């Protein structure tokens, strides 16, 4: 019986955690090692992108290198491929790739990275991930093992399979390195073995199966096959095919297993699968195996083991009988880890306590396959994580990459097929370990098992159960010893096996045979003999406790005891027949009191006509628990008192001597024959024994050879692995070399200069394509270098030069011209190999022709510049950036009385006793250096030795050097003393003339003003005269004529009246003309009413003449202003208004007259279209000039601002006159 993991215990149910609810989906772990890339690619290429599954690729990667796997695999699928980062959540239809040097595991619905442990053991990253996947995903986990060496993944697939997941392995034909998938397939738990493309197809198909993915996306409930009838049929098929009745196993577990097989065989419904099962007996076996899949491990729940060892220790020390043996039974042992764990624990315990009983561990299971694995005792590498290194060293030996339990332990362990629910149990056991078995059995079977265990255990024996298991209703049989770790002690008492009548004898027989085959056969023989003796010779007896309750019946006790009528009772005295009860009471009471053996002889018992003479013996039995005591009550028959001797062999009464003699002869003959036979037999035995010895020794030899072979094989394997590694390395190296070669070739063709490689013998070995420029090509290869001499032009003996370099190990450079007069620079350097040997030389030719020609051009330019410098009359000096004299021309030396020797290299400020150390000059130079610009006409007074102080004009310019940023400075000197003098004289004269002119202008203006004033005055006087005199007189004349017309004369003569009317009309017209003339010459209103009223009148006048309003405003203006002054202002206003009327007839005009503290301000502005004052003035129009002139006469300022479309603004500002009372 195996111990499957309970798949329900850790289903990936999202509603258990707090994360968002996502319907669980299958996660496919794909593991590979060598050759994995190709397999991955083919798998991904064939996969549809919408399987609803997630794929996690676990590849053994070089820990030291960055993996390109993600980008390579992205090309094979349109699913998203990403390298795993810590804590990454897994989503369907995506591919995740493990990064290098990490261990990947799946926990709480996310991928977690751990750094790889540093220990030397193998890195089983695939196993590790698969196990975590199985734990987390259980039935929704899928494992795929692809190409690779080693056996990583096999254990992981087991874990997946036992969690009801589905397992794949690549077939050997398509795998580049088949060891890893082969190892996986060899475990027998792989569902599909096929090439990657088919695996992909199969995965796609599985993703559609309703047992894997429920049809409704959000439904997270697991779908299990339904149908009681079908299930029953499956159970019966299993019972028939395997002999195991699964009907009492927990049903969901079985149904889940069936669902898994249906997924594998593509069945969606139960009935077709049942039909399939009927037709394929091998599928029955498969189902059986799947149902029993399990994962066990060493020292599962270590704390429980510790507790058990403590209990066992007490048990061993206390054992009264049979101290020499300790027997343990482990039903449902599967592949034996539990058995070996116990064996190791007990072995350790014995060594610690010094008690060394014979140890026997019986491991049983119904799965023969599992048992075969158990017997081999070979454990995979993963046990490294379960077993301490101390135990590993002591109890394991490394065999063939695996670990084998040491022989000493294996010999104490026996494995046999046995169905604990049906087969006869073991007996006289000290320990039964039955962990995690009961949980798979329903309560009926569970209840039935405990009496079996009770029967099988010695009194005080231990029962070790799994953490989730308990003795339940059988608490009367077992007492709790350690409730936490589920260790129970068998209670004393008779076995209660009445409910168990169906033990199969054959199973027990099988086991017996196995037992005989082990080293314990002598012990069992003794048991057998004991049993025979007991059955045939032992007295009939019962065992009672202190309460007279019968615990055991031995032999045929029916003659002495019978069930008493009434309530059923095992009370000895109640069951005793006849008078026997009295005797029993007496004798047992004595025995109880004295706790000693008591015998009573000569009792007569009559029963059914038979009379027996018996003796009764009572023996107290000490239990290992001292408070309990039992008594063996034996009924011994006195043989001589058997009255009906029907069972005695009585000789025939009628005998003859002949017959006696004959028989005696026969007897003698028989004896002789028998003796002979016996001797022969002895001899044969002897021979057999000897032969046996030989066989044994041969066997031992074979065994040692085998072990040697094993070792050799291991060595070979490791060499092979090494060779593979070396080969792979070489491959890589080869690729690198190829790459290097390519690089080199490309570099060579890319180098645009001729490069030659010459060996020690001065033969040309290699050259770049650019060597063609020198006429050197492939045809020159492997020829002596002296053959090239002809092509080297002006270069002297090439061979000699190379030899020189090789000898002196110094790089040499030569310039030469080839045959076509091109300039080359040749650099010869020794050719060093990696081990620092000189193996020839490398000749690098650089085309320096442009350079040489450029040098030539620059030389010419320099000469040209020199010639210019020397030819120029002005002193010139060239300073370097440090302001030291680089060179100077002859003129410079002459003018400044310096010699070349004195000047060159001198700092400019130190030159000629520091006479150039002038702050302004320094500032100029520093600015020049800083900005790189130039300065011109910088004048400096300079004292020359013989010519006195001269004015020098300096021009400076930096001749910038683009590469350096700074450059030399060119300074040119010019003696401008004379010129300055002339200029100053001219300027002085000019100024004087200007002043004179100004004076004349002023006079002219004054004159013009006076003239104007005079004219104004004249006009005013004439106007007055016209108005006051002529006007007055004309008015009078008009009145007189009117009087006359209306007078008596006119009335008397109508024609006179008419003439007078006409006359009056004429006079009126004349009067009007005179008035207009007067007004035009001088507005009298200015005299009479002052400037303000006059301007107001003017405004009104203009308003009448135009369509737009004229707004006049005045403020603080004195009433009395001198007439010329007021007249000037009036005339300016008049001019401005007539301009406005002319240019802006439709625009409103504002006139503002304001008197300030000491000035008068007149502003006339309009919003009309404006005009350009400059052009208007240039055309002499608009009286602008006369306005300006008037303003000037008044000592004021007139501004006219006008721009087309922005209106005109005439602004007059004049000082107020000193108050003068007019008139």
């Amino acid at each position, binding site marked *: 019986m195996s111990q499957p993991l309970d798949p329900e215990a850790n289903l990936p149910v999202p509603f258990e955690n707090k994360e968002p609810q996502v319907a669980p989906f299958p996660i496919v772990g794909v593991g590979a090692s060598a050759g994995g890339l190709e397999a991955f690619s083919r798998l991904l290429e064939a996969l549809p992108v919408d399987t609803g599954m997630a794929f996690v690729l676990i590849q053994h990667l070089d820990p030291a290198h960055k993996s390109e796997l993600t980008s390579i695999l992205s090309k094979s699928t349109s699913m998203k491929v990403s390298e795993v980062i810590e804590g990454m959540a897994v989503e369907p239809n995506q591919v995740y790739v493990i990064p290098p040097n990490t261990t990947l595991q799946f926990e709480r619905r996310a991928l977690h990275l751990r750094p790889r442990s540093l220990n030397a053991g193998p890195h089983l990253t695939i196993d590790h991930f698969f196990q975590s996947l199985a734990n987390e995903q259980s039935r929704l986990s899928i494992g795929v093992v692809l190409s690779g060496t080693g056996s990583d993944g096999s254990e992981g697939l087991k874990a997946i399979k036992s969690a009801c997941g589905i397992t794949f392995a690549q077939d050997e034909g398509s795998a580049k390195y088949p060891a890893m998938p082969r190892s996986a397939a060899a475990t027998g738990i792989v569902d599909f073995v096929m090439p990657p493309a088919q695996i992909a197809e199969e995965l796609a198909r599985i993703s559609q199966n309703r047992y894997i993915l429920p049809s409704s996306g959000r439904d997270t409930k697991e779908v299990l096959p339904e149908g009681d009838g079908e299930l029953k049929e499956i159970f019966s098929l299993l019972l028939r095919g395997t002999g195991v009745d699964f009907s009492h196993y927990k049903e969901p577990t079985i149904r889940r297993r069936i669902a898994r097989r249906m997924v594998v065989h593509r069945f969606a419904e139960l009935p077709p699968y049942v039909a399939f099962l009927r037709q394929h007996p091998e599928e029955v076996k498969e189902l059986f195996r799947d149902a029993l899949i399990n994962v066990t491990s060493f020292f599962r729940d270590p704390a429980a083991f510790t507790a058990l060892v403590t209990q066992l220790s007490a048990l061993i020390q206390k054992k009264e009988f049979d101290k020499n043996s300790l027997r343990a039974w482990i039903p449902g042992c599967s592949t034996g880890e539990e058995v070996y764990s116990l064996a190791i624990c007990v072995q350790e315990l014995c060594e610690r306590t010094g008690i060394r009983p014979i140890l026997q561990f019986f491991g049983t299971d119904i799965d023969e396959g599992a048992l075969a694995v158990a017997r081999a005792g070979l454990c995979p590498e993963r046990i490294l994580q379960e077993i301490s290194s101390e135990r590993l060293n002591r109890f394991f030996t490394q065999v063939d990459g695996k670990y084998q339990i040491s022989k000493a332990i294996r010999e104490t362990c026996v494995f046999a097929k046995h169905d604990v629910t049906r087969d006869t149990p073991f007996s006289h056991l000290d320990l039964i370990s039955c962990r995690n078995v009961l949980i798979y059995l329903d309560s009926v079977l569970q209840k039935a098992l405990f009496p079996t265990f009770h029967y099988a255990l010695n009194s005080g024996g231990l029962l070790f159960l799994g953490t989730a298991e308990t003795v339940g209703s059988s608490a009367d049989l077992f007492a709790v010893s350690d409730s936490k770790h589920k260790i129970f002690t068998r209670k004393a008492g008779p076995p209660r096996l009445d409910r168990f009548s169906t033990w199969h004898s054959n199973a027990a027989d099988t086991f017996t045979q196995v037992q005989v085959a082990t080293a314990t056969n002598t012990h069992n023989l003794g048991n057998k003999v004991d049993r025979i003796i007991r059955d045939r010779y032992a007295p009939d007896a019962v065992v009672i406790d202190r309460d007279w309750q019968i615990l055991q019946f031995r032999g045929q006790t029916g003659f002495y005891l019978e069930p008493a009528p009434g309530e059923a009772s095992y009370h000895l005295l109640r069951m005793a027949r006849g008078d026997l009860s009295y005797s029993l009471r007496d004798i047992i009471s004595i025995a109880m009191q004295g706790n000693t053996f008591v015998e009573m002889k000569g009792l007569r018992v009559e029963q059914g006509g038979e009379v027996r003479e018996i003796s009764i013996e009572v023996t107290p039995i000490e239990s290992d628990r001292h408070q309990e005591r039992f008594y063996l009550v034996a009924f011994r028959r006195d043989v001589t008192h058997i009255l009906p001797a029907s069972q005695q062999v009585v000789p025939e009464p009628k005998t003859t001597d002949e017959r006696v003699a004959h028989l005696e002869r026969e007897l003698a003959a028989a004896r002789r024959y028998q003796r002979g036979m016996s001797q022969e037999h002895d001899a044969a035995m002897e021979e057999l024994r000897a032969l046996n010895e030989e066989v044994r020794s041969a066997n031992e030899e074979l065994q040692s050879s085998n072990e040697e072979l094993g070792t050799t094989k291991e060595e070979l394997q490791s060499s092979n692995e090494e060779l593979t590694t070396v080969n792979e390395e070489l491959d890589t190296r080869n690729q690198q070399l190829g790459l290097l070669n390519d690089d080199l070739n490309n570099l060579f063709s890319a180098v645009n200069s001729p490069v030659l490689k010459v060996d020690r013998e001065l033969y040309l070995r290699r050259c770049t394509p650019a060597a063609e420029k020198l006429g050197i090509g492939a045809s020159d290869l492997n020829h002596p270098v002296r053959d090239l001499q002809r092509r080297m032009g002006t270069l002297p003996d090439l061979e000699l030069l190379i030899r020189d370099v090789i000898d002196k190990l110094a790089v040499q450079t030569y310039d030469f011209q080839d045959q076509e007069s091109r300039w080359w620079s040749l650099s010869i350097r020794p050719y060093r190999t990696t081990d620092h040997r000189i193996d020839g030389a490398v000749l690098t030719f650089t085309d320096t022709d442009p350079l040489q020609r450029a040098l030539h051009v620059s030389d010419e330019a320099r000469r040209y510049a020199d010639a210019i410098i020397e030819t120029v009359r002005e002193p010139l000096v060239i300073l370097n950036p440090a302001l030291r004299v680089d060179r100077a021309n002859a003129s410079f030396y002459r003018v400044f009385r310096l010699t070349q020797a004195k000047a060159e290299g001198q700092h400019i400020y130190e030159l000629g006793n520091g006479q150039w150390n002038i702050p302004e000059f320094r500032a100029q130079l520093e600015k020049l250096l800083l900005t790189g610009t130039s300065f011109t006409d910088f004048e400096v007074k300079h004292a020359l030795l013989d010519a006195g102080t001269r004015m020098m004009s300096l021009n400076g310019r930096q001749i910038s050097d683009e590469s350096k940023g700074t450059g030399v400075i060119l300074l040119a000197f010019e003696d401008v003393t004379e010129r300055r003098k002339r200029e100053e004289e001219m300027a002085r004269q000019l100024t004087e003339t200007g002043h004179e002119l100004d004076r004349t202008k002023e006079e002219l203006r004054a004159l013009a003003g006076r003239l104007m004033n005079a004219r104004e005055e004249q006009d005013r006087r004439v106007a007055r005269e016209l*108005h*006051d005199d002529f*006007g*007055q007189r*004309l*008015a*009078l004349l*008009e*009145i*007189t004529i*009117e*009087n006359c017309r*209306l007078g008596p004369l006119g009335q008397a003569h109508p024609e006179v009246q008419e003439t007078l009317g006409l006359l009056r009309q004429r006079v*009126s017209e004349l*009067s009007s003309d005179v*008035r207009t003339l007067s*007004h035009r010459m001088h507005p*009298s*209103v200015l005299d*009479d*009413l002052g400037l*303000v*009223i*006059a301007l*107001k*009148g003017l*405004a*009104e*006048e203009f*308003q009448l003449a135009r369509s737009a*309003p*004229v*707004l*006049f*405003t*005045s403020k603080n203006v004195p009433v009395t202003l001198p007439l010329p002054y007021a007249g000037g202002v009036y005339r300016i206003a008049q001019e401005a208004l007539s301009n406005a009327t002319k240019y802006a007839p439709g625009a409103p005009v504002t006139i503002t007259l304001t008197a300030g503290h000491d000035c008068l301000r007149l502003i006339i502005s309009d919003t009309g279209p404006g005009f350009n004052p400059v052009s208007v003035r240039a055309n002499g129009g608009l009286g602008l000039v006369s306005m300006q002139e008037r303003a000037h006469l008044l000592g004021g300022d007139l501004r006219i601002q006008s721009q087309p479309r922005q209106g005109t603004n005439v602004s007059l500002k004049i000082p107020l006159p000193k108050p003068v009372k007019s008139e």
Partner: protein
Amino acid sequence: VNEIRIVIADDSEPVLYMLGELLKADYDVVASVGDGRAAVEATQRLKPELVLLDISMPIVDGFEAAREIKEIRPSALVIFVSEHREKVYAEVAFSVGASGYVIKSKMITELLPAIREALAGREYGRPAPTGAHLRI
């Protein structure tokens, strides 16, 4: 008996004569003077009901005379008789307290109506306002 007494002032003899001739039928011309100062003095002395003033006169012009007359005898009515036809003269005249303004050459037809209006408490010859935009 109930005659209105008038002082007339003009620096021109013929005009004074003309005015006298025009008025003598209906009014009592109590004084004819030749300058503004004399007009003020006559008004102070004779206390006339009406004063006719020219504007352009020597010593004190008509406007100044009118101001002083209105000061010393506010009940005296002033009418300007002037040859100035510009509107500003008329405005200034009314601003110094005149009741009428008559262009000299039209005095024959307009003076007597002007006097009648003034005596009736109304004005004669005030120019129509030219608009709010003309301000002093």
